[in-house]
């Protein structure tokens, strides 16, 4: 099946359309089955993926609008492969763990459309197709937050939409300008990213274009100071919305940097290392401090998720194999861990209808399974060795140490800060006296909830202990990317900065 990527993109969409016909009562089973098939398809993608090949695989190309150079152009490499896997996995797990939801059929259909757009973003190799899925992903998310969210849901959903939409329109102008440059140099219109890679641009053009793309991606990540939409989005979104948002949608931003900014503008990227590192550090430390001050468990998780996105950004701009691989790996681990944490918060919210830490205490006694899984995920978020969180974080810090030891030490404090606020959650929620009457009758996780979390726990530990199957292909593609950037860079500083290593070891 050479066209498996197309199938991966359009299967959920077709299933979503057909889902309108499925009866309300069976909608959940339908959704889970479809998501499971999609996940199996993505596993198939992994198994038929040639891990020794660092380039694009499963490439499909159909010209759509040749006069404008737009074509339906898909492909996957080691970087996108695992993000696709994570996307389908988190959609499946999120759907499976979803509690009682009103209008469940609409939710399932929306999620399936969302899955199409998410997979589409990660497999698109044509800038316009990428933009298409990127923008389209806003619509289902708008609906999920707006229809199933908290009291401020409409405000939150519109803020989310407009923020991202504005940023991506600036990015669109950047894309159009790159296409124009490509046309003026070659005489051919093309929006294919692989064609664009061949462009060697003067540094001042690179800087402007880097800025245009940066606005689009940074809002999505969300980089400080463009992060103000995310507390609302997370605060108001239903559990499933937060899970998808944190696990997948934010990765679109960091993935965009890897796919567009780094290979297309290597010199500008090198020049941007310091400003971006400073912003990322502010993001890491500042949001960690905010997280510490929160009373609401979900907000703690939300801010910690933003804080960890800062680590990912730092790794992306380390310009060496450790940092970049670690960063891509951290995208996966962040997706799984923060997704799981949001699911856990959602489960306790369903039982108690509150997310305030002060309302809990001593839950470990009544909900042992919940406490254990929460504890594992928390430790993974903090970056405890032998969990998935450690591998990425360690590699990123190792990589960035070669750029700036000082900043790396500062970023390292984030791990300590992270431990502080996360352990605080642990302490107030699970330990201490079980003094609230309502908490004494709480039921532990039921089978559905347990079984949707177990796979995540397994992955957290498996990839924490033995990350090689995943790190290998990532390393391959990352090295190819670095070699490419190094060859393409025109300034000496950039050539010095971009470190091409021939061998990289993964993880512990």
């Amino acid at each position: 099946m050479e066209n498996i990527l197309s199938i991966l993109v359009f299967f959920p969409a077709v299933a979503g359309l057909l889902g309108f016909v499925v009866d309300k009562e069976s909608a959940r089973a339908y959704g889970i089955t479809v998501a499971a098939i999609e996940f199996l398809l993505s596993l198939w993608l992994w198994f038929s993926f040639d891990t020794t090949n660092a380039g694009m695989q499963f490439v499909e190309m159909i010209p759509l609008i040749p006069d404008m150079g737009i074509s339906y152009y898909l492909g996957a490499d080691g970087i996108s492969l695992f993000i696709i896997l994570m996307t389908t996995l988190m959609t499946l797990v999120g759907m499976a763990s979803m509690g009682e939801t009103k209008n469940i059929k609409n939710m399932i259909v929306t999620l399936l459309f969302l899955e199409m757009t998410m997979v589409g973003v990660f497999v698109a190799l044509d800038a316009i197709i990428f933009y298409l899925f990127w923008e389209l992903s806003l619509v289902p998310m708008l609906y999920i937050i707006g229809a199933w969210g908290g009291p401020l849901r409409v405000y939150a959903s519109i803020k989310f939409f407009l923020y991202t939409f504005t940023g991506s329109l600036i990015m669109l102008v950047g894309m159009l300008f790159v296409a124009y440059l490509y046309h003026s140099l070659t005489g051919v219109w093309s929006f294919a990213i692989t064609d664009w890679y061949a462009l060697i641009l003067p540094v001042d053009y690179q800087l402007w274009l880097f800025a245009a793309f940066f606005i689009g991606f940074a809002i999505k990540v969300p980089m400080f100071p463009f992060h103000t939409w995310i507390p609302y989005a997370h605060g108001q979104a239903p559990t499933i919305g937060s899970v998808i948002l944190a696990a997948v949608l934010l990765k679109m931003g960091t993935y965009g940097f890897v796919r567009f900014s780094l290979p297309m503008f290597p010199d500008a990227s090198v020049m941007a290392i310091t400003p971006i590192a400073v912003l990322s550090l502010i993001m890491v430390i500042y949001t960690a401090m905010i997280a510490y001050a929160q009373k609401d468990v979900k907000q703690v998780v939300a801010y910690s998720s933003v804080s960890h996105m800062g680590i990912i950004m730092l790794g992306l701009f380390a310009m060496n194999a450790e940092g970049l691989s670690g960063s891509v790996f951290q995208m996966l681990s962040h997706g799984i861990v923060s997704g799981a944490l949001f699911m856990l918060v959602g489960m306790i919210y369903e039982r108690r209808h509150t997310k305030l830490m002060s309302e809990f205490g001593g839950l470990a006694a009544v909900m042992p399974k919940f406490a254990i899984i929460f504890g594992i995920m928390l430790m993974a978020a903090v970056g405890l060795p032998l969990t998935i969180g450690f591998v990425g974080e360690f590699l990123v810090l190792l990589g960035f140490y070669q750029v700036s030891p000082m900043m790396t030490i500062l970023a390292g404090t984030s791990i300590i800060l992270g431990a502080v606020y996360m352990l605080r959650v642990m302490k107030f929620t699970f330990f201490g006296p079980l003094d609230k009457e309502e908490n004494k009758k709480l039921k532990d996780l039921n089978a559905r909830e347990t079984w949707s979390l177990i796979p995540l726990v397994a992955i957290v530990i498996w990839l924490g202990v033995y990350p090689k199957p995943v790190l290998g292909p990532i390393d391959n593609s990352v090295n190819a990317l670095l070699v490419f950037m190094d060859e393409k860079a025109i300034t000496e500083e950039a050539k010095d900065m971009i470190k091409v290593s021939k061998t990289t070891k993964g993880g512990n």
Partner: protein
Amino acid sequence: MLEPINVSLESLNLITLAPMLIAIAGGLIILILDLINAKLDKTLYVMMTILVLFIDFGAVLGLNVNERGFFDVMLIDGISIISQLMIIGGSMIFIPLALTSKRFHEYSYPEFFALFLFMIAGFQFMVATDNLILIFVGLETASLSLYTLIALHNRANSYEAAVKYFTMGALAAGFFAMGSAVVYALTGSVELYKVAEVMATRMNETGLMIAIFGSSVLLLVAFSFKLSLFPFHTWAPDVYEGASAPLAGYMSVVPKIAAFVVSIRIFGMYIDLGVEWVRWTILIIAILTMTLANIMALVQDDVKRMLAYSSISHAGFIMAALALDTTEGNTAIFLYYALFMFTNLGAFAMLWISRHKKRRFNNRHDHPFEKFSGLVQIMPMGAVIMALFMLSLAGVPPFSVFWGKIYVMQAAVNAGYIWLAVIMGLNSAIAAYYYLKLIVYMFLMDPVKDVDTVYYNISKPLMAIIGLATLATVTAIFYVQPLISYLYYMISASGY
């Protein structure tokens, strides 16, 4: 003694007149039918109109590109053919909207349909000539018919709208006449191709620049009225509100296509002559139009008024493409309207469905946002379709208007106006808010009590038209390529 002038019939090339004559003859046939039997139903007139338009469409398709006829007054070039096709096509999807399930009295008059066909003939004359006098005649024929069509609607503010439009239109006609007079005084001709030749030789004369610029300003004012560009846009929301919903949608597309064709001919000439002032004036007007109309649209309470401002903003967007004066820019104008036509007419048709015959929704508005709150619970398909139209208008890919937007922006970037593309992008972002507002009302709010009116007017023909518009909106990605290559070919063939 004067020599008799011999004109051979071949040299007149009367075939160039055929499309307009077909429309006029169709209008006359409808009037004669009414004389013979006064009790004929509106369905007959609607179908007759469609058939006449069908023949008209065929006649336009059969024309040869780049021909002149009728004492060289008629000019059949690429843009005149594509604009006529779009005018007729837009009219063909507009006219079945008369077949509502409730009876609206304007459609029971055969005069409505006759006037409609005369109006189309007027638009066709406007676009198929480069003679300022014939442009004027076509413009007035079309406008006078349009004023009447608006006034035929059964609301008190329809008369207000018609009179307002008439007054503004008369003023614009005055400006047009004065501008043409100055052009004639400068060059001794009203034929634009001769005007361009003469002006090109006189460009270096001292003191003449002010007269040339003056003529362009007068003409620009006239067309700013017609295209509802800032600061001459103030009539548009009131007129749209007073007109029936489909007619408002029609007005935001078809007359503007005709006016844009004339603008391309006139202002393209000025820009080609190297009068950069004209380009900058148009750019500034375009930017102000799209920005201010967007900001005004943000605060509207009524969906129809919101759509009115949104269509003003879209017109500003396209006007900026005109200022580029490149083949791509001109292609962008037609591509944008071709795509915008379906979506916008579809959105107005959705309002038309919800229109109650007598009752207003509240004292002030017919279509306030509250009317559509919770539409997804009352009419799920309708809400989804309306949301698709709104997303398309907001420029969310892959829906139709996005491809127009990206083409306009690409044309701006290619012409070196990157800042213009950025302004367009930011404006699209502002615009997204008010389109989203309707989506939020439809999907995220609960219905207001006693809303029986949201599908009051629905009928099979309306559903068919809305279905067609939805299809065109959703599948745009598949037909944009042939559309672009056809438009680009026709426009470059006519030298714009």
